[in-house]
């Protein structure tokens, strides 16, 4: 077996952060690739299968923080010849509102976002290969993402490894300024391993590195310098951002036809944003036609090192987007699934689903002040908002 050596990464401390990070993820990448090739040389017996053939169509609604978003969404997958699978999706957001975030550019706003996804999956022995492309379009933002993912089952399907790569290219515009046009390139590399532990427990570990290069600011936002607004678009962000996310989750089956899962994610990046996410879910069958899910989530974030609600000195980089501030968030929700029919014509199962979730965001150092008239209250941290999401959808398996 030929072992390919990872490139030498013994960099000196002084080397730029981005470079070091790129090198590290490269080492990691190569190692994983080596492991994968090593596996591929062996014969495994438990066959991997293509994802289920299913179609979903639904409506979603979001209301909170002065913003309302709703629209339709759909996703369908069809398999061919036992080894090919194609899928496609469409998502529409119709956005209206006047959140503090958007008040800066225009008072009231209405906007639409359309997202299209197409993809294909190829199955070969115990390996699944997936290629997909997503295009998203809204008035002031256009996004293209291509992804490639490979997953491989081994040890009699006890273990599944996956690696994936996304490359994205975005264009950022301003609704109020035709001459404004900026680019953003996005790269992400991910790797994961899922492991069957017992007859009822599975665990999964995921890692993802994201690199963004280009225009990362919010084009409309302004910053306050000693209570004086520096004007729309006065935010200044570094033009690269590298983040690392690690997540570990487990799921257990209970004999009373239920499952519970627990997940944790840690994230940090070169802007010094750090976050912890805890996810909980409980699912229970009731009779032959109902499934009830109850879920909860807690998220806490530390701000970027160049974030401030009100700067006291002018800095090279300045941000006032609440996304980059320190805050806590929790969410609780539930989902009800009702199987309307089984084996109707070519459909195996058809189900109606209703999901409702309540979200709460509580900011530590964002005042929510967006007009000069209120500057006296700057520094009085404590902006918070809550929101409700509703999803109603029909799923069919065939």
């Amino acid at each position, binding site marked *: *077996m030929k*072992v390919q050596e990872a490139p030498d990464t*013994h960099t*000196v*401390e002084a080397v730029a952060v981005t470079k070091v990070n790129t090198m590290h993820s490269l080492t990691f990448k190569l*190692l994983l690739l080596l*492991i994968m090739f*090593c*596996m591929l040389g*062996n014969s495994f017996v*438990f066959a991997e299968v293509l994802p289920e053939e299913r179609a*979903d169509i*639904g409506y*979603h609604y979001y209301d909170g923080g002065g913003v309302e978003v709703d629209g339709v*969404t759909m*996703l369908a997958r069809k398999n061919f010849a036992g080894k090919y699978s194609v899928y496609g999706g469409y*998502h529409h957001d119709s956005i209206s509102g006047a959140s503090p975030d958007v008040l800066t550019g225009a008072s009231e706003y209405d906007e639409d*976002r359309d*997202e299209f996804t197409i993809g294909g999956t190829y199955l070969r022995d115990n390996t699944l290969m997936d290629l997909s492309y*997503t295009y*998203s379009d*809204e008035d*002031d*933002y256009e*996004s293209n*993402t291509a992804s490639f993912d490979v997953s491989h089952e*081994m*040890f*009699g*399907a*006890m273990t599944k490894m996956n690696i994936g790569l*996304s490359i994205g290219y975005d264009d950022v515009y301003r609704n109020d300024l035709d001459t404004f046009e900026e680019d953003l390139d996005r790269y992400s590399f*991910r790797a994961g391993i899922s492991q*069957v532990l017992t*007859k009822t427990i599975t665990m999964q570990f*995921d*890692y*993802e590195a*994201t690199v963004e290069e280009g225009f990362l600011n*919010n084009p*409309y936002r302004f910053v306050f310098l000693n209570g004086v607004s520096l004007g729309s678009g006065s935010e200044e962000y570094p033009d690269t951002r590298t*983040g690392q996310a*690690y997540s570990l*989750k487990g799921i257990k*089956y209970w004999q009373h*036809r239920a*499952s519970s*899962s627990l997940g944790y*994610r840690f994230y940090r990046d070169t*802007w010094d*944003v750090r976050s912890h996410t805890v996810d909980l879910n409980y*699912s229970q*069958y009731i009779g032959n036609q109902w499934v009830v899910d109850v879920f909860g989530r807690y*998220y806490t*974030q530390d701000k*970027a090192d160049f974030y401030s609600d009100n700067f006291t000195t002018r800095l090279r980089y300045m941000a006032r987007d609440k*996304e980059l501030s320190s805050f806590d*968030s929790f969410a609780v929700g539930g989902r009800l699934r009702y199987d309307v029919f089984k084996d109707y014509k070519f459909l195996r199962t058809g189900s109606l689903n209703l*999901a409702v979730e309540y979200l709460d965001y509580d900011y530590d150092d964002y005042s929510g002040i967006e007009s000069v008239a209120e500057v006296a209250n700057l520094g009085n941290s404590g902006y918070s908002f809550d929101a409700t999401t509703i*999803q109603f959808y029909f799923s069919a398996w065939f």
Partner: protein
Amino acid sequence: MLNIVKTISKLILGLKVIILASACSSFSISDIEPWVAPYEREYLADPIMSFNKDPLSNKYRQHVFNTREGSRGAGYAHGGGCGCN
């Protein structure tokens, strides 16, 4: 100081290669014996045991969080625009 770090790093890299090689060789001479046999996967095969049993709903949910939070990645939705600027 830097040299020590370098040496340690090299040692670790070497160790990795050795482990990798031994791992490879042990796979090729024997089949792995899974401790949860394929015929014992009834519960694991249940749809409620999937981390992503509602792909459409999950994707939407992750999008809602992604557009409001400063974190991304690791088993969570990626790509696409924001609808939030």
